[in-house]
């Protein structure tokens, strides 16, 4: 461990907070329909878009939770169908000139998984980008879902907030208006800025095709290229995580320097962090936002510290091979297996904590090669159901469900009717909350059990990991990741056998593709429905003024209670399973 390593982690937290606060205020204005400084530029295209999609631009119709949910589902379904079509007809679009390598489509089962993955904001990838996808598929297919699946997550959170603050009636807003405003006012401007910053620092942006270089020792090297920066920006901002290249943000064309690494880490967390400040502003009490932000930040820093210490310590395999993993002049030591030099131990550990507390899933290092404890940290983050910042929107609506649960438990402990922001939490709400919270772990554990118990499931485990705790870790990670719509992986786990580029002779592993695809879809849309239903149930409730006995939800006591609830639910659900994989490896020096 080094001083600069620690500075990376804590400096990052400070920069993030400083940037997220103003963005949160701006976003609150966007969703409250207030004037923003972007209005002069965007008001006209916004109204034009409404007209084109047949929404009344002057007064979009208010939707109750069921109507809102219907629009979410219909829009996601339309997106699913279009993406599946584009990916399966990859060669049909060769006339655009955007398939320089002439790649064929991936098989149907892989495409089913990929489509479900991008529509659910997961970006789990059973394919290698630079050997499978044309530029056209990357842009018109995957990038589009990077925008709209992120927007969908955000607007569901906004709808839930409207339910919490609603003073009368049932309206949660209008989905189409929220969708258009999210894309135009938030995602596109931020993406343009981040993409250009990334290019200025070395990230690629070209349609120029692959290069052949003749090295100075006489070996030739084919260099895959793509329009990277435009997709990279929204991949991080929308907590999507699907890399253009197989090695994702470890690839130097996606993540060129230590500085681009910082930019990408900030891009991943900025919207989830800003949403919390936005929440405080929208409910009329910034302290409510600060309480949730503190909860998230404490758990996030805890995860980052543990991961950094574990990775700096090195792995049993390194020690068995006789390597010295301490700091020496000119090298930080540590577990550098599956890590690139420019990011180092701290920059890799921090990135992978960020990508797993959110639902991003982009990686700049190989999580499978992390030490036992270092690898248990991402799994623990996933086990917390993406509430430590979480995905864009999904993180906020998920933690709000936990907040309601904490309020309920707190209310039981002091013997009063639980109330949150003046609204009584009653049987219907708490039932919906419990279902919303438990659905993701249920999907993850059920799918894992199926996959390890069946020979069809076990064929996805990599040869080097078979038979040991690593094989179990690969499997549980795969389904934790897909159920939480994360998309990072113990990447030895595979669903696509591709002997050569261009999909010649390739085939998918149908079991893994289908189980994963259905897990993603179920664990994305079921919680959305529960969150919207909670919003709908709260929307019509009267707000009673706080009294002497009202439990406060904006002080350190509540933060402790909330952390306790999150840890308890996650630990009770997943601890037995995690014991079998990463924790065994963390506790032993034995090699399998």
């Amino acid at each position, binding site marked *: 461990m080094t001083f600069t390593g620690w500075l990376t982690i804590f400096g990052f937290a400070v920069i993030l907070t400083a940037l997220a606060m103003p963005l949160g205020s701006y976003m609150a204005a966007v969703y409250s329909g207030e004037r923003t400084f972007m209005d002069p530029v965007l008001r006209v295209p916004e109204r034009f878009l409404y007209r084109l999609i047949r929404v009344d631009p002057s007064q979009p119709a208010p939707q109750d939770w069921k109507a809102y949910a219907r629009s979410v589902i219909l829009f996601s379904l339309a997106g699913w169908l279009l993406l599946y079509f584009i990916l399966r007809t990859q060669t049909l679009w060769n006339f655009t000139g955007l398939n320089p390598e002439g790649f064929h489509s991936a098989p149907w089962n892989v495409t089913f998984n990929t489509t479900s993955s991008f529509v659910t904001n997961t970006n789990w990838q059973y394919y290698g980008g630079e050997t499978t996808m044309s530029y056209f598929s990357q842009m018109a297919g995957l990038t589009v879902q990077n925008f709209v699946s992120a927007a969908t997550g955000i607007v569901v959170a906004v709808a839930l907030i409207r339910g919490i603050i609603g003073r009368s009636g049932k309206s949660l807003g209008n989905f189409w208006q929220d*969708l258009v405003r999210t894309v135009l006012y938030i995602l596109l401007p931020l993406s343009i800025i981040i993409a250009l910053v990334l290019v200025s620092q070395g990230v690629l942006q*070209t349609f120029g095709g692959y290069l052949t270089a003749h090295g*100075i020792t006489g070996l030739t090297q084919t260099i895959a290229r793509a329009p990277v920066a435009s997709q990279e920006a929204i991949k991080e901002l929308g907590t999507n995580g699907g890399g253009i290249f197989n*090695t994702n943000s470890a690839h130097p064309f996606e993540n060129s320097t230590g500085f681009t690494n910082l930019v990408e880490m900030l891009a991943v967390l900025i919207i989830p962090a800003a949403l919390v400040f936005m929440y405080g502003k929208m409910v009329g009490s910034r302290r409510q936002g600060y309480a949730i932000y503190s909860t998230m930040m404490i758990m996030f820093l805890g995860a980052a510290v543990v991961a950094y210490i574990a990775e700096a310590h090195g792995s049993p395999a390194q020690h068995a091979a006789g390597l010295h993993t301490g700091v020496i*002049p000119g090298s930080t030591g540590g577990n*550098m297996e*599956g890590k690139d030099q420019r990011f180092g131990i701290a920059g890799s550990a921090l990135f992978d904590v960020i990508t797993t507390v959110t639902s991003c899933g982009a990686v700049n290092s190989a999580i499978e090669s992390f030490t036992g404890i270092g690898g248990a940290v991402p799994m623990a983050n996933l086990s917390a159901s993406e509430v430590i910042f979480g995905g864009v929107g999904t993180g906020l609506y998920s933690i709000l469900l936990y907040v309601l649960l904490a309020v309920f438990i707190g209310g039981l402990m002091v013997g009063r009717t639980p109330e949150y922001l003046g609204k009584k939490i009653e049987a219907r709400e708490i039932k919906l909350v419990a279902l919303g919270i438990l659905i993701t772990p249920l999907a993850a554990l059920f799918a894992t059990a199926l996959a390890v118990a069946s020979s069809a499931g076990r064929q996805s485990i990599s040869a*080097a*990991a078979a038979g040991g705790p690593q094989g179990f870790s690969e499997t549980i990670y795969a389904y934790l990741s897909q159920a939480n719509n994360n998309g990072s992986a113990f990447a030895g786990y595979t669903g696509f056998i591709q002997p050569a580029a261009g999909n010649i002779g390739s085939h998918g592993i149908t079991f893994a593709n289908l189980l994963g695809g259905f897990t993603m879809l179920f664990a994305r849309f079921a919680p959305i429905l529960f969150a919207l239903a909670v919003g709908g149930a709260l929307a019509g409730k009267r707000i009673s003024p706080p009294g002497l006995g009202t439990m406060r939800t904006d002080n350190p006591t509540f933060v402790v209670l909330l952390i306790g609830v999150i840890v308890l639910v996650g630990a009770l659900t997943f601890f037995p399973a995690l014991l079998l994989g990463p924790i065994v490896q963390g506790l032993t020096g034995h090699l399998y």
Partner: protein
Amino acid sequence: MALKKDTITAALAILLLTLLCGILYPLVITGISQVAFPGNANGQQVQVGGRLVGSKLIGQNFADPVVKNGKVVLDKNGNPVTVPDPRYFQTRPSATVPSDNAAATTFSNLGPNSVATKQELTTNIAAYIHLNGRYYPGGLTAAKVPVDAADTSASGIDPDISVANARIQAHRIAAVRHLPLTTVNRLIDTYTGGRGLGFIGEPTVNVLELNLALNRISGGHR
């Protein structure tokens, strides 16, 4: 009725957003990038005498093909079998096939407690000691090998090595190229990149730039 209207809106919305976010946005970013940052946008290509020798960002395998009976020896995948060229700094071990394959990148995905990982590390350490040991004062042992020289990189095409790794290889380069060690070390200093904003990331030595600079001061390939 509401369902039908909503369905039409959904279809129109996804088509329009595809045009906006999937076509227009990448084209605009490409246009601006190609004008404002053409070098970066096209991959920081390095040319020598008008010939593309690689990208500054992409690691390569500085190795020579093994020739037997006048023919290049191929492995079972049809790729040339190579040995590291001692005249050049070597990049980190790579999990791609062949090494440093920039058209199909991959992680090693080897676990922390895996026998396969230990075997791979032992092989890499032995290769590093075989290449550098006899030039390094006092010889090399596994404990003296920097971790980045034994562990495979993430991208498989890591363009950089650690300063510690470069300093050890400098002894070999100096001996093979008949250069003073101080000259080689000065070159390393020149091509060592610092941390972003002073604390982000780790110092890196860019191997391609360093090797090209070596060729400029002491001749090119045999």
